[in-house]
């Protein structure tokens, strides 16, 4: 079993300076390990810190203490201590993140939004767009929409463009934040299939997923989280 991602004593709090320095403790000594080909779903009530953990794993939030080890290029990199350029390199090649909402770039057509990662990796434009096209079709985004910037798409369509963008690069580690929240049953089934295929490829996956059916279909195990308990 190859561990692809693990945390040791990961803690995270937020200090709100505009609220008189109010301190919000969210993560307290989280230990998590995810192996290649495994999907771990974070579970727990709202406010348990699932999204905070996910964003910390991606290096989007900065950990206060603890380590986040990611297997990158055969070595372990600590995201919690890495400099910005190293984090960008890890994200580029190893660590993919599908957020709940697509951040649209003005004027860029859906097809290029999806193909972008491959293009930045040096894949030829034709091959990259062909791969993007087929992934969008798999996610039931019809060809007539491919040339249109997704700003005007529905929530479900944007989420599917975002999924295509997240899956196209086949990162060895994938973080999925509510990947099916805005999707109908047919498209949920497509996403379940994509996650299964990724696991078969050996992708390590961490997901947040409130939909019980999807969770049961993709999770190898649950990682239970509960709201931070202040020491009495």
């Amino acid at each position, binding site marked *: 079993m190859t561990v692809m991602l693990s945390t040791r004593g990961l803690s995270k709090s*937020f200090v709100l300076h505009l609220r008189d320095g109010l301190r919000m403790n969210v993560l307290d000594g989280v230990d998590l390990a995810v192996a290649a080909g495994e999907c771990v779903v974070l579970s727990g009530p709202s406010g348990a810190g699932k999204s905070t953990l996910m964003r910390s794993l991606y290096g989007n939030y900065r950990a206060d203490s603890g380590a986040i080890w990611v297997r990158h290029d055969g070595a372990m990199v600590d995201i919690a201590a890495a400099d910005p*350029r190293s984090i960008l390199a890890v994200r580029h090649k190893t660590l993919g993140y599908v957020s709940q909402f697509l951040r649209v770039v003005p004027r860029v057509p859906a097809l290029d939004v999806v193909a972008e990662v491959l293009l930045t990796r040096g894949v030829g434009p034709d091959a990259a767009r062909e791969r993007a096209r087929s992934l969008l079709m798999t996610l039931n985004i019809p060809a007539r929409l491919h040339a249109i910037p997704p700003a005007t798409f529905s929530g479900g369509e944007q989420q599917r463009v975002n999924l295509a963008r997240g899956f196209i690069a086949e990162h060895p580690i994938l973080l999925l934040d509510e990947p099916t929240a805005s999707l109908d049953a047919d498209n949920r089934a497509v996403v379940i299939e994509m996650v299964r295929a990724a696991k078969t490829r050996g992708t390590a996956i961490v997901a947040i997923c409130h939909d019980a059916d999807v969770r049961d279909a993709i999770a190898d195990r649950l990682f239970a989280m509960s709201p931070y308990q202040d020491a009495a």
Partner: protein
Amino acid sequence: MNDPTLLSGRGLGLRFGGITALAEVDVDLWPGEILAIVGESGSGKTTLLNVLSGRIVPDSGVVWYRDPAGQLHDVHVMPAPALRTLHRSDWGFVHQDPRQNLRMSVSAGGNVGERLMAQGARHYGDIRSAALDWLAQVEIDADRIDDLPRTFSGGMLQRLQIARTLVTHPRLVFMDEPTGGLDVSVQARLLDLIRSLVTRLGIAVVLVTHDIAVARLLAHRIAVMQRGRIVETGLTDQVLDDPRHPYTQLLVSSVLSA
């Protein structure tokens, strides 16, 4: 090369009379990297840009530039003609007001071709076809090539300035509020253009902006300035999504989202 750093400012300090314009500022830039400098008016962003590009000499500190041969140059000690050559070739400067850079009495094509000629290009046909190519890249119709810039809209002028700057394939471009003062729709087009050109050509950029959305869209790293100091720096999305310094928290929370 062990240290690929393209541009490095160390311990930069500058005072204008009793006002601290810069204090203890350290900046590093790698090839192909886009660094945004954000902060409110008067925070020292533009002063820093001018110091990094050799246009203002700081009271203390040093700015190094590594040329394509790997040679390091102290930007503030190098002879003026050498600095001018750098500004005409390896470097580019995009001003908020394109009129500062463009020659308003010279045609659009002439404005683009002039920088090539300054680099020694002499063949008229080559210069004109390079100008045409760059006008197309910044989405200016070929039939406007002989028109004077004063007949252009603000957004077109800014795009012309970008063509004039990038035609010599600089390795490093300084940008001062490149989308400031433009309509939102024009801004979006310009941002997309800057983003795709800079990525495709692998140009390093120091970008000064007060607009956090612009920084998020374009920059790999961000430095937040307040009263002449860098109060917070890091990966763009980290600093904007998980701001730590009180001033950064204020800056991020003050943005209206559409």
